[in-house]
């Protein structure tokens, strides 16, 4: 095995290699060759056929076959069609798309032009988060340079084919990563999802046939066109060909982006590429798929990473966030963290998501602050399933995953919270109790003087005591004690 520990760079092929602000660098790496091939040597049907045979699936989360999407929007009748790129990367802990847009913007532009050629569209729109100013700047520059060289705009490469791309800035709404919400946002409205069908391929942006793919999906397309679908299929698995970029973060030694062939076991990514867990701690779980995904426990670390295997474990591939958790992380706390996120980001259009997630969050808050009972765990499970089954869009359908997966794999941890009112990982601060160890206390009064609620009493040079009833668990005494005489449990 080579020194990159089994990584294969297709989507990230140029990132960090070329100067993203120089189109010449991109062209020198074979850039825009795929476009020329698609325009002059292939018919639209052949382009679609190649993408279909490659087995490329959407890298934004759900894994819908890309070629099929192209075929559907290609077949839709209409004088006006759109090619859209979903660059509204909103999952906390995920930054694959950002890196591609900042490091290799032309790979996305070129693929969108090829898609336009394939489905008969002349307009492309990239919907990008306003939180990514550098990516916006580089895309703008890339569009300008490509237009100057006749690779974008009117009469591309003298072929008579016109295709323009413009940027559209989001305004901070997670739900806009859902494709129909995104389209409503581009139309100037609130980013609320639509009922499907009709699918975007039939009636998308401004009710015109629209093909929408994620950034990383597009970043794969040019190589598939250039090298052929057989080449692409040599990587990955039968059902999930190619590679996937993951944003490895959390308690792992090497954080950052990795691109691996599908089917690689999770353990290899974490232990070998990620260099294991920080500070010699023990791996507890891996969270994939962000707020829509779930937590996969240590015993399933040998699972191959592909769409189906992760769904079977109650998580999803998602856009590629991979957060490594160690034994210091509380799984109830993590579930609460994600629920808080989705409850705030729910757009409010459908009831199960708007109210259901709010109720789920309230139950979790009850558990992490010591008011829980075993009945709450049954409620979480039942309500979680209702929200999943009845919500209108992907946000609500997947938002209970963090709760349901932790309930399934870390039931014991929930039980300790509800029965013993204790948090084994000491993350749920409301459940903590602070004590001063008499054998260690030197009576220096530092804790008493720093306590914001003055609940520590004791005379100089004598053992101090914390009044549990008044303690607000602020951790100040724990940090200030010069002899580490304070313990929490």
């Amino acid at each position, binding site marked *: 095995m080579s020194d990159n520990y089994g990584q294969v760079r297709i989507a990230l092929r140029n990132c960090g290699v070329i100067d993203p602000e120089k189109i010449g660098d991109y062209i020198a790496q074979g850039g825009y060759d795929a476009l020329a091939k698609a325009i002059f040597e292939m018919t639209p049907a052949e382009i679609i056929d190649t993408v279909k045979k490659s087995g490329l699936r959407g890298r934004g989360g759900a894994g819908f076959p890309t070629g099929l999407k192209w075929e559907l929007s290609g077949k839709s009748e209409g004088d006006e069609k759109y090619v859209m790129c979903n660059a509204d990367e909103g999952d*906390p802990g995920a930054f694959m798309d950002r890196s591609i847009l900042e490091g290799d913007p032309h790979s996305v532009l070129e693929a969108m032009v090829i898609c336009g050629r394939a489905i008969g569209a002349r307009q492309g729109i990239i919907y990008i988060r306003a939180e990514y100013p550098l990516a916006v700047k580089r895309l703008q520059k890339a569009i300008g340079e490509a237009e100057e060289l006749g690779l974008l705009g009117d009469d591309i490469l003298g072929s008579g084919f016109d295709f323009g791309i413009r940027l559209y800035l989001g305004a901070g709404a997670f739900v806009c990563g859902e494709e129909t919400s995104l389209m409503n946002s581009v139309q100037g409205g609130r980013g609320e999802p639509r009922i499907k069908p009709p699918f975007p391929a039939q009636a998308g942006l401004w009710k015109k046939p629209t093909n929408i793919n994620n950034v990383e999906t597009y970043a794969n397309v040019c190589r598939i066109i250039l090298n052929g679908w057989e080449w692409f299929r040599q990587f990955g698995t039968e059902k999930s060909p190619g590679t996937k970029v993951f944003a490895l973060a959390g308690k792992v030694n090497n954080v950052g982006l990795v691109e691996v062939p599908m089917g690689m076991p999770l353990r290899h990514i974490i232990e070998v590429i990620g260099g294991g867990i920080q500070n010699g701690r023990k791996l507890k779980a891996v969270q994939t798929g962000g707020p829509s995904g779930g937590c996969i426990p240590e015993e399933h670390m040998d699972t191959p990473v592909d769409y189906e295997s992760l769904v079977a474990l109650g998580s999803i591939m998602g856009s590629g966030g991979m957060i490594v958790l160690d034994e210091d992380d509380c799984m109830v706390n993590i579930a609460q963290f994600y629920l808080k996120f989705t409850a705030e980001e729910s757009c409010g259009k459908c009831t199960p998501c708007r109210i259901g997630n709010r109720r789920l969050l309230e139950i979790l808050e009850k558990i992490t602050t010591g008011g829980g009972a075993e009945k709450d765990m049954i409620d979480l499970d039942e309500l979680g399933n209702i929200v999943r089954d009845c919500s209108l869009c992907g946000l609500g359908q997947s938002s209970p995953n963090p709760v349901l997966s932790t309930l399934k794999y870390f039931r014991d941890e929930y039980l300790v919270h509800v029965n013993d009112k204790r948090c084994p990982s000491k993350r749920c601060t409301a459940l903590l109790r602070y004590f001063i160890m008499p054998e260690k206390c030197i009576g220096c009064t530092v804790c008493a003087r720093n306590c914001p609620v003055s609940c520590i009493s004791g005379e100089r040079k004598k053992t101090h005591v914390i009044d549990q009833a008044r303690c607000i668990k602020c951790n100040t005494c724990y940090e200030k004690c010069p002899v580490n005489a304070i313990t929490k449990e």
Partner: protein
Amino acid sequence: MPQQAAEAAASFPEIDAYIDGLPDINGALIPVLHRAQEEYGYLSREVQLHIARRLQIPASKVFGVATFYSLFTLEKKGKFRINVCLGTACFVRGSEAILRQFETDLGIKARETTEDFLFPLDSIRCVGACGLAPVVMVNDRVYGRVKPEDVKGIVEEHLKRGGE
């Protein structure tokens, strides 16, 4: 002057110029709101009404959109916007403690602003710098691998510039 008359009299030449330069006003609402916030710092009632008239859409729609997206603000913000990242990567690496430290040091809660209007404190969801977790942003500047004891220095650094 009665409120309605005041609203009618308010003029926003920068926004007018921007709208006049647009190829199509259909679907232009969000870019126009971005532009207005960039120009004035926040979206006042007056500017929202003005935009509604210019784009020929109901004011309720403008308000609906302005309140839907978290980047738009309807109130004036302070000078140094402190945003502590509570994205997952930062969260598991202890960003909650950083936020609490800011709350203690500034004497305010998250989503509040200090009385001198210098420091609005808030949390943010993932700036895509997870490799630097935990991350704090002050306006456009990113501080990486922040520890609770760094908080004081970050505040003081800006206090020094605050008087300028």
